[in-house]
Each structure stands twice: as structure tokens, then as C-alpha cells.
């Protein structure tokens, strides 16, 4: 009986056929090109940040920093207003994300599990989520007036409150799926066990939706940390955040490339670290909200 000759390659106890290997190499090469395409600007920025300004815009370009120096970081953190920009960013972000979580997670629980007449809970959830679709520029003038009237213009706390309003629908959207995924019978069982609604939320739901809360917190953290438009409009000097502050490196006659790069690295770094550690949660958060098992 004639058998078809099979060319296979052994690698780590698995047999691969030639076409699999070609396809595999192609895939890796494709991904590699894409990775370089996306990662190069990051590399460029990071490498510029450890150079002197002279090196940073030398031509032909210096691809690899030969004499790395932290002088750019030193100057922006120790001189000038950038340290306070970073502090403002941190204050605004922590305030708004925390406040939004505290307000919206219990609210989402209520919206998902309770029966309002006329499906009001569903309509309200959709209304909240529709707030996403509102471009912030539309409401920015009102916010400007509002904060000025309240004496919160150019205050981190004022900007933090405004961001909270944007974070609430985001967190509701994210945690909704997680809460809806938990079988009603758990809540019913706990109610029959004698728990009140708060105990059901706090002792049953909260521990179970932690991944969802983490995902929501990370996403809203990143959005808030990087927000530019509202920060530009609602602050002038005292509460200026880093994304807006970075602009100051661009002067009328010259750009301090190395300091600009260092500033951007300082903005981006926390997000990158945060995302690297927590991307698992984010993926599950995105998927879980979308598909009802």
C-alpha cells in the first residue's frame, strides 16, 4: 500500500508540516512589521528623552543614544512647573476615577438587578451610555461657566468633578455586563438567606465583579490621565495637567526635544506599566460585557 510521503519537522515534541511553518513565519514577520510600525515612535520618544537637546535633533539622526543622560528628566522634574502638572494630573485622575467608581458601581447594581416600572432602569442605563456619544467640546463651555460660578475654575478638584461625569457612564457600561452575568439566583438565594440589598451587593456581587471593576477603573484612568481638551479649557495655570503642560516645551523659536520627550514619557509610562500588568482584566472586561454566556 502506497503511503503519501510526509515531510514534517519536529520541534519540541510537535510535528509541523512545511506549509504550517511557512505560514507561521509569515505571520510572525507580519506582526513584527506592525510592531515596529507602532513601537518606533515610542522608541524614538524614549531615546530622545535620554539625550541632550543637541543630540536629539542632530542630522543625520542619532538612532541609538550613545551617552544616555537623565538631564532632561532632571530639568523638568526639578525646574519649571512640570512637577506640579504631574501632581495635578494625579490628583484629578485619582479623584475622578475613585469618585466615579464609588458612585457608579452600586448604581449599576441597582440598574441591573431591580425592576423599575416601565423598564425605567433599562432606559436610564441607555441614557447614561448615550452620554458617551456627546462630544466633550459641546458641553465644555457650560462646564467652563459652571466651574467659574462655583469658584472651581482652574482647580484640580473642579476638573476632577467634570471628569467624574465622563467616567460614570464608562464604568456603568463596563460593569453592567459583569453584574448581569451573575445569575439572579445568587442574589435571590442571599435575599432568602436574610441578607439585605446592601449586603447582597457588598458581600456577593462586589467580590465577584472585581475583574470588571478593575477593567473599568483602568480604562477610565487612562482616558482621564490623557485627557487634553477639557483640561485645556477648564484650567489655566494652577490646575494645569501634564498633557496640556507638555505644550510648553514648544516655544516660539525652539523646541526642547529632549525635555518634550521626557515629559511625554512621564505621561505615558504609568499607563504602559499599568496596562502591562492589567491587560488580562481589560480583555476579559471587554469580552465579558459583550457576550452574554
Amino acid at each position: 500500500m502506497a503511503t503519501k510521503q510526509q515531510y514534517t519537522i519536529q520541534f519540541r515534541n510537535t510535528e509541523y508540516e512545511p506549509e504550517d511553518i511557512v505560514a507561521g513565519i509569515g505571520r510572525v514577520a507580519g506582526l513584527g512589521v506592525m510592531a515596529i510600525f507602532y513601537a518606533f515612535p515610542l522608541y524614538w520618544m524614549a531615546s530622545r528623552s535620554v539625550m541632550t537637546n543637541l543630540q536629539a535633533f542632530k542630522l543625520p539622526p542619532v538612532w541609538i543614544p550613545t551617552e544616555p543622560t537623565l538631564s532632561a528628566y532632571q530639568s523638568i522634574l526639578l525646574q519649571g512647573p512640570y512637577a506640579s502638572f504631574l501632581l495635578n494630573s494625579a490628583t484629578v485622575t485619582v479623584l475622578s476615577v475613585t469618585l466615579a467608581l464609588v458612585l457608579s458601581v452600586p448604581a449599576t447594581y441597582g440598574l441591573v438587578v431591580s425592576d423599575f416600572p416601565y423598564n425605567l432602569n433599562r432606559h436610564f442605563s441607555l441614557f447614561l451610555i448615550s452620554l458617551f456619544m456627546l462630544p466633550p467640546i459641546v458641553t465644555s463651555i457650560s462646564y467652563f461657566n459652571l466651574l467659574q460660578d462655583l469658584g472651581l475654575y482652574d482647580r484640580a478638584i473642579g476638573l476632577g468633578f467634570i471628569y467624574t461625569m465622563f467616567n460614570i457612564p464608562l464604568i456603568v457600561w463596563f460593569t453592567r455586563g459583569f453584574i448581569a452575568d451573575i445569575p439572579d439566583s445568587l442574589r435571590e438565594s442571599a435575599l432568602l438567606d436574610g441578607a439585605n440589598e446592601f449586603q447582597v451587593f457588598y458581600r456577593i456581587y462586589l467580590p465577584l465583579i472585581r475583574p470588571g471593576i478593575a477593567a473599568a477603573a483602568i480604562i477610565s484612568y487612562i482616558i482621564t490621565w490623557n485627557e487634553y481638551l477639557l483640561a485645556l479649557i477648564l484650567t489655566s495655570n494652577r490646575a494645569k495637567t501634564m498633557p496640556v503642560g507638555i505644550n510648553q516645551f514648544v516655544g516660539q523659536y525652539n523646541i526642547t526635544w529632549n525635555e518634550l520627550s521626557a515629559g511625554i514619557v512621564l505621561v505615558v509610562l504609568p499607563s504602559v506599566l499599568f496596562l502591562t500588568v492589567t491587560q488580562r482584566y481589560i480583555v476579559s472586561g471587554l469580552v465579558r460585557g459583550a457576550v452574554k454566556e
Partner: protein
Amino acid sequence: MSKLDIKQLRKVYNRGTDTEIVAVDDLSLTVDDGEFLVFVGPSGCGKSTTLRSIAGLEDVTSGSIRIDGRDITGQKPKNRDIAMVFQNYALYPHMTTRENMSFGLRVNSMLDDDEIDARVNEAAKMMGISELLEKRPGTLSGGQQQRVALGRAIVRDPRVFLMDEPLSNLDAKLRIQMRAELETLQNKLGVTTIYVTHDQTEAMTMADRIAVLDDGKLQQIGTPLECYYKPANQFVAEFIGSPTMNFLTVERSGNRLVHDAFEFVVSNDTVDLCGDRTALVMGLRPEDIDLGGDETTNAVSGIVEVIQPTGDDAYIDITIGDDTVTLDIDPEQSVGVSVGEEITVSFDEEGVYLFDPQTEATIKTNTELEPAGPDGSDALDTTTKP
């Protein structure tokens, strides 16, 4: 140890809209202290809704629910002192077995930690899950989860147990084992129990009394044997018993019940029961039909369609006229029978049920078995509802 009274319970969903659904319609019944009552019926018959109304998980539209005379109709679930076992067990996944079982005592009792521990240990011992106390539900098998769910219910020592199809997620073998265990447990604890199932076998084997529901209405409440031998109507007759009862449309002419394919002669007693009705539905339990019989004495012939041996029984489907009739016979008897063959079957008049085709009400039930109760009364005396 409690008595549960349900009076004219009614539950309507989407009231006043086009999609109005009457889930439970004017349901009244009493569950005696320590009784094991099983609600049985097809899906959508209102059995789960009734159970959830008792638990307080659904608001009732009208009617009242009382435990030991205390009206609990509008009470919150936590104030009803009821424990419920859910179909999916509803164990808290982030808690160990011990935490699951003690949750109710912690949130809603004045007991201190030592007492709670003692009660959990005792309940765990009773359910044979002592070694599982520190494990999480995710690491337990279905049968173990089931035990934990039961343990969580009994540790609270509630007035009433509610069980919503608790065995339906188990495999067949384990289900039969748990059926017996549940019954033993209920006998030992003596807690008034209401059990919901769509499985008539479960209902028959476990219940003190069965409440058969259909379309939100109570069809019959009685002991398993009452429901089996003296069904209140055609629905109950069809629902209780496996394989299901065969129904044949017949026309009565004097003492003769005339079917398309045969005639069956009945006694004057049966004729009296029929009154002036001529159109009838004849019901035959598969096990009341025997193979063989003399062609001249109430025997019927039919063509064999399917033979299904189950081991200790054999089910044979035969066509009689336009109808298919299932027989439940000994497997030895089925040995000589082959598909396509014409065979003769017979049945006694005692085993024949008759129903009114319009109202589906029972006209004649099985008259063969009249076992007397312990006090000499008729044990099968039905307390039927329309």
C-alpha cells in the same frame, strides 16, 4: 414545623398590556406541617412562579400566603424564614462551603461564631460534606454542590423548604440516589417542603402529595397513587405515568365503545358512569395492556411499529387504526415480537379510563385497584379540584 396556606393566589405578568400572561390563576392549597408536597407540571404551568411567590421573590397580583396563620404575602424574603434550593444551586462562588453555609446565619441571626460553627458542622455531617467545608464550590462536583446547597438550606432550620428542580442538573444515576437521600432527609428533619419539578417520576417517588398544575391552574392535588389511579382529568392522566397513557377516541353505542379499528364491550356500571355521553376518550395505561388474547373477547389487533427494550421492561408501539398505542410488557414476552408483525392485544375493563372529550373531565378511572387506607377508608379517595 409549619403549615402553609395559599389562598386564591394569582400572578399576572405584564398586567394591562397586550402581552399579559396569567402565570398562576386562583390557586388555593394547604401544605400540612411536615408534608412533602411536589408541584409538578409542564414548563410554563406556573409551578416555579408559585414557588417564587411563596419565597417572596415575586410579588403576587392577588391572594394570600400564610405560614402558621401569619400572613407573609407582602413580606420581604428575609422575613419569611424560608430556605430555597435552586436548580443551579446558587452557591456563592467566592466563598468556601463553610462560608456558604454560614452566610445566612451571619447576616440574619444573633448567633455567635461558635454556635454558627457548631451548626454548620452538624449540617455538614448530616449531608456528608464535612471534608468539603474549606473548599470552594468551583472545585466540587455537581453532586457535592447539590449537597452543599441542601446543607446551606438546612443549617438555617427554616420553617419551610422550597426546592426548585434541585436534581435536574445531576446525571441520571446520581439523581436517583439524591432522590432517596432527599426523601430520607426530609423525613428526618420533618420540615414542610415544597418541591417543584417537571419530572413526574420525581414527583411520584418523593411526594407525600402531588399538586399537578397546568396553565396556571391546579388540576389535582392528591397522593401520588391518587393522581395515578384516579386522575381528575385527562391532563393529569396524561402527565402522570410513564410511558404516558394512550388515548383513543371512541363513540359509545349502548354497551359498545366503537373505535375505527375495534369495538370494546363494557359493563352496565360503566355505561351508567357515561350518562348520555356518546363521544368519549378512552385512556389506557401502557402497563394495563397485555399481549395476546382471544379475538372474540375484547381483543384488538395492531401492527408493531417500534420495540424499545429498557431492560426490565419493553415498550412496544403498535398502530391500531389511525392511532399509535404504547404497550409496557415484560421483556421475555417481547422476544417473539418483530416490527411489522400484526399482534393481538387485550385489556380489562377495570383498567380502562374514560374522559369527556369536551371538558376533559374524568368519567371512569381504574376500578381494579381500590387499596384500603390504614383506617379502613379508601386510600385513593381523591380530593380533586376541577
